[in-house]
C-alpha cells in the first residue's frame, strides 16, 4: 500500500463524484453529482462543459445522489449557463432533495434554470 496515497485520494469514500453522459444524438448532456457539490468539484465540473463542442446542447444536472450544495456550486452552475449560451441555455436541475431545493429557492435560481 503506497504510504502517500493514490491519485483521487481527496475523494476518499466517494468513488466518482461527477459523471458525464451524452445522449445518443449528443444533444443532451447529463452530469450526475454525488456527495458534496462544492468547490472541490470545480475542476471536474469545468471539464464537463469546457470541451463541449455543441453549444446548442442541453444539460441535465442530476442531484439525486448529492447530499449538499453550497454557493460555489451555484457559481459553477452560472459558469455552465454562460458557456451553454447564457439566456438561450437549456439547463435542468433534477432530483433535488428538500435541502438543495431550499438553497435554489432562496437564491431564486429557478429564474435561470429549470428546477425539478
Amino acid at each position, binding site marked *: 500500500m503506497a504510504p502517500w496515497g493514490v491519485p483521487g485520494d481527496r475523494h476518499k469514500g466517494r468513488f466518482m463524484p461527477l459523471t458525464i453522459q451524452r445522449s445518443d444524438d449528443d444533444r443532451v448532456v447529463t452530469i450526475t453529482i454525488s456527495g458534496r457539490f462544492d468547490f472541490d468539484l470545480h475542476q471536474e465540473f469545468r471539464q464537463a462543459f469546457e470541451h463541449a463542442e455543441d453549444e446548442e446542447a442541453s444539460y441535465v444536472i442530476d442531484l439525486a445522489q448529492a447530499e449538499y450544495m453550497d454557493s*460555489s456550486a*451555484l457559481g459553477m452552475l452560472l459558469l455552465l449557463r454562460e458557456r451553454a449560451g447564457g439566456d438561450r441555455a437549456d439547463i435542468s436541475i433534477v432530483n433535488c432533495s428538500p435541502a438543495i431545493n431550499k438553497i435554489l429557492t432562496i437564491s*431564486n435560481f429557478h429564474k*435561470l434554470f429549470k428546477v425539478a
Partner: protein
Amino acid sequence: MADGNTPQPNPDTPSGVGATRVLIADDDHVNRLILKAILAKEGYAVEVAEDGREAVARFTEWQPDLVLMDVMMPVLDGYEATREIKALAGDAFVPVIFLTALSDEAALARCVAVGGDDFLTKPYSRVILKAKIDALERVRRLHVTLRQQRDELAGHQRRLLQEHQVAEKVLAKIVHSGSLDASQIKYLLSPMAIFNGDMLLAARKPSGGLHVMLGDFTGHGLSAAIGTVPVADIFYGMTDKGFSIGDILATINDKLRVILPTDVFFAAVLLELDANHSKLTIWNGGIPDVAIRRVDGRVEALPSDHLPLGVIENEQLDRAVRVVEVEAGDRIVAFSDGFIEAHNPEGEMFGLERLVATLASEADPDSMFDGLLRTLGDFVGEGALGDDLSLVEITCDPAWALARSSEAPRAFRPRAPMRWSISIELVPDTLRSVDPLPLVMHLLMDLQGLQEHREQLYAVLMELFSNALDHGLLGLDSALKQTPEGFVRYYELRKQRLAELDHGRVRISLDHEPDGRGGSLRFTVVDDGPGFDHSRVFAPLEENVSFFGRGIPLLKSICEHLEYTGDGNQVEAVYRWGDNEAGADSATHD
C-alpha cells in the same frame, strides 16, 4: 591525495568554506591516529577528543558535521556523550557513527537508542568508513535543505498573516463606517466576517430614514472580501444623498457585473425604513427570509424574491420591492444562511422553521436577540458555531428617527449667499425612471453649501414632491394607508398608476435670495393634476401627523411660510437660513 577523492568544500560549516568536519572521540591513542590518517587523506578536517566529556566540549566549540564515537571511554562514555551531543545539536542533523568492537546485539541496539546513526567495527576499513560517511552526508544535506525550506515557508506564512491583519483593519474601516451603533440596532457579526465576504451596513438617510444591508459574497478569503469595498462605497454614498434602495441595488448590480467573474455573486437584502418607521421596504436577492416580529408576538417571514446581485444584467434586473407596514415596537430580523445551516452533532440543520419558532416563543422582545443566540448555541452543542453567522435586529422606533443626528455636523460652511434659481420639470417617462430628489439635493449642496440644513431641506422637498406626484398626478388618497391592507394596496396602486401615467407633469422650482443674514430659499412645486380642496384638508389635519408622510405640521415647523394655492396643485414653502435661523429654530413638532 591518496586516491584523488577530495570532498567538496562544505558551505554548511560555520566558516562557510572548508572541508567537512569530523570529530573523533576515542580514548585509544592508536585508534585516533589511524582514523585521523584515513580521514585526512580523504580530505576531511579532523579534530580529536580523548573522552566523552572532551568530545562534548569539542563539539560545542568546533561544531563538527559528523562524529565518530567510541563507546567505552572514561569520564563520560560514548552513550552519554552521544545523548548530550544530539541534544546540543537540536534542530540540526549531526550524524554519529559508533566505533565499537562489540558484537552483542543489545549493545548495538543501545547505540541506536541513544541517537547513534550507524556503527563501525574494527578493523577499520577505509572503504567502508568513507561509504558510511558519504551516505550520512547525503542525509545531512537533505536535512539542511528541508530545514531551509521549512524556515522560508514559516517566514512566508508570518508575512501573509501580517498582511492579512493590515488588510482586515483597512477593510473594516472602509466597510464599517456606518450607523451600526445606533441604539435600535442589535447585531452579531464575526470578526473574521470580512474575510468570508459577509457584510452588514447601516446608514441614515438625510430624511431621517434608515438603510440596512446584509450581504454575502460567494467564496472565501480575500477574493470574497474585495467586493465589499465598492459595495460599501456605493451604499454609503447613495444613502447619504437620499437615494432609495432600488437605485442603490441597481448601481451595485451594475458594478458587480463588471468587476466580478461569472461564478462569483453577492446575495444581499436591502431594508429601508422611512423616517416615521411606519413603512418598511425590502429587496431580497438570495438571503434567507426576513422575519418581522410584531408587537403582538406574531412572526412573519418574508422570503427572497430575487436573484443575487452581480448575476444578471441591469436590463433584466427586477427592482420590485416588498412594502410592509410596521409600527413602533416591531422588530425586523435578518440573518445570513450560516444561521440556518448551522447543524448539531447529528447533522440536523437549525433551519428556518426553528428560527421563526424561537423568535415567536420569546415573550420579552428585548430578550429575543440573546435568546435566539442561546438557542442556536444549545442546538449546535459541542460543535463550534461557524464564523459565517451574521444577524441583525432592528427595532422600529420613530423617536430615534426624529431625533437629530448625533453626528457632528460636517465641516462645511455655507457659501456666501447668492441669488440663483433652478427649475426642473418632470414628465411621466422621467417620473417613472428617475428619482429627482437626490439630484436636486445635490444641486442645493453644491450651489449654496447648505449641508448643515440637509435633513430639513430634504424633508421639505420630499413632502412637497410626494404630495404632488402621489396625490396630484396619481390621484392616490393617503387615507387608504390607515389600515394594513390599505397600506399594501396604496403602494400597489401607486406602482400601477405610475406605470400607466401618460400625461401630466411636476415642476420643482427653487429660488434663492440673500436676505442680509443668510438666505431665503423658496420651494415651488406645481403639478397639473386636478388638485384638491386644500382648505377642506388643511385645517382638520393639522393634528394628524401621519397624513402626508410626516405632514404639513412638520413643514410648518421647518418653514417660515407654507401656502397652497390654485386648486391645491401648487405649493410654495420658504426656508430661511443664516445667523438667526428663525425657521429652523423650533425643533419641536406638533
